[in-house]
């Protein structure tokens, strides 16, 4: 009789009429390695959590057929599930008034397998325990692979986003970044100056010394602009020799004048490329957000471009600050030139 139950349900126990263990299946015996379970009272080894019963055998038998939740009293105090059959007068299994209890590790299976070093042989051949362990490990492996794949994709996305806002030649921001930066400043009601800057004589450098020299000059000019501005300012390249500067917190006209003068002087410092000296200058048109009640970036750009056009009309290396009292003539051409929203490309 015991051999049959040991094979079919190695986690069973047969209890006598007083609640003592008469026989324990081999796996149940393994989880109590310190001694033979026979003769021990079942409820002294296992705490009955649900249903709530008394400590008597009678109370235990009353839970027959119900789903039982138990806890191993000894460490690690594993939770177990079980089911109980009350034995009647003519039972072949055990004495009248006794019981047959079968237990399972249920969700605590991985802990139990580790704690008691269980092997495949400790489970009935029909038990799904090994399949469950297999699935847990397969799931863990899959989740890790997906997690890594996710991290790689996330990295790729961040890189792509950074690229989308960057001019590849100079590393400056591009037109897309202008919208993002200025919309934040406008939303935060922070004043700024917007400067539209074209390099003067750049085309001559490009034509006489070639594209490589032109690229070098663009990079040097970009570097100069970064050095002349503060960390919370933004320098953007719109393609070709057109740049845009966002100068945070600038509200005074004299301040803009001084900055523009300094920047132009800096850009007029000759740039040496492979033994050849390249001389450029810059024209600047500027506008203050403070001059509009409700700054609008498209309108500000149009005004900055009109001022730039006026600066160019008066010669090279000049700057004009848009004055709302005496606005320069708005040049349709100048406005349109800036309307291209494509990302910055190589110089023409």
């Amino acid at each position, binding site marked *: 009789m015991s051999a049959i139950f040991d094979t079919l349900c190695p986690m069973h126990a047969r209890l006598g009429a007083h609640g003592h263990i008469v026989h324990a299946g081999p796996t149940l015996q393994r989880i109590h390695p310190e001694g033979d379970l026979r003769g021990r009272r079942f409820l002294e080894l296992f705490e009955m959590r649900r249903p709530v019963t008394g400590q008597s055998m009678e109370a235990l038998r009353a839970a027959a057929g119900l789903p039982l939740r138990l806890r191993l009293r000894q460490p690690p105090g594993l939770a177990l599930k079980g089911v109980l059959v009350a034995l009647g007068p003519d039972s072949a299994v055990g004495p009248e008034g006794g019981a047959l209890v079968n237990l399972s590790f249920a969700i605590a299976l991985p802990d139990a*397998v580790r704690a008691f*070093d269980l*092997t495949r042989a400790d489970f009935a051949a029909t038990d799904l325990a090994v399949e469950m362990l297999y*699935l*847990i490990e*397969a799931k863990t*492996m899959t989740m890790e692979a997906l997690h890594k794949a996710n991290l790689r994709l996330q990295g*790729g996305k961040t890189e792509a986003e950074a690229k989308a806002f960057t001019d590849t030649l100079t590393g400056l921001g591009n037109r897309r970044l202008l919208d993002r930066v200025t919309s934040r400043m406008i939303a935060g009601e922070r004043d700024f100056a917007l400067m539209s800057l074209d390099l003067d004589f750049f085309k001559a450098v490009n034509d006489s010394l070639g594209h490589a020299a032109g690229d070098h000059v663009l990079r040097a000019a970009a570097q100069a602009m970064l050095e002349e501005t503060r960390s919370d300012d933004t320098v953007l390249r719109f393609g070709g020799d057109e740049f845009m500067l966002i100068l945070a917190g600038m509200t005074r006209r004299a301040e803009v004048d001084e900055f523009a003068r300094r920047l132009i002087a800096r850009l007029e410092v000759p740039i040496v490329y492979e033994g050849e000296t390249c001389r450029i200058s810059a024209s600047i048109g500027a506008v203050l957000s403070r001059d509009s009640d409700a700054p609008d970036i498209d309108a500000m750009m149009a005004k900055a471009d009109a001022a730039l056009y006026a600066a160019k009309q008066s010669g090279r290396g000049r700057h004009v600050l848009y004055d709302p009292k005496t606005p320069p003539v708005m040049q349709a051409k100048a406005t349109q030139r800036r309307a291209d929203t494509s990302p910055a490309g190589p110089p023409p």
Partner: protein
Amino acid sequence: MHWLVNRSVERFVRDTYGRETWVEVARLLDPDIDAFDAMQGFDASVTHHLMAVVAKILERPARAIEEDIGTYLVTHPHNAPVRRLLRFGGDSFEDFLHSLEDLPDRAHLALPGLDLPRLEVIACRGSVFTLAVTPTGPDSVCFGSAFMGLLRAMADDYGALVTLEHKGQDGARELIEVELLAQDHGEARAFALGAGAGQ
């Protein structure tokens, strides 16, 4: 075919031949972006193409590379979970061999998109077993040689002594003959049910 298969090929190249070799492979696969993303391939043709490029770069026959990938999946520390999942198949190499029939279904449970070839022990004369590896569809990757490498590595893992012979193709399926000379020839690597990762 699941992207994880392509990803395994990538990991194999990187872990065995180094990052630079993989960069060469990726460059040939997708010259525009210099980086092949294994996740883009859900199609078996991507795997075929990938294997052809790897064979070209490594200057080795595709079958030999497949076999090395099979070994790599069992023996490289990066793949410890794979080796463990395979050891769930049985307590001895012979049990493991028979458990291979369940492998595609088990893999499918864990990863519904992963269609492994059908595996069957079709003949068993004494200690000689014939394993048939059959692709699931006309375009699927069979990877018969990969199972040669995998079986050899698993025999080592169980401490069994085997000889393996690729018997060629029979229609779509590839036949591998396994002769089990000794179950406990060497020392088996330890395997405890409860030693799994992530716990």
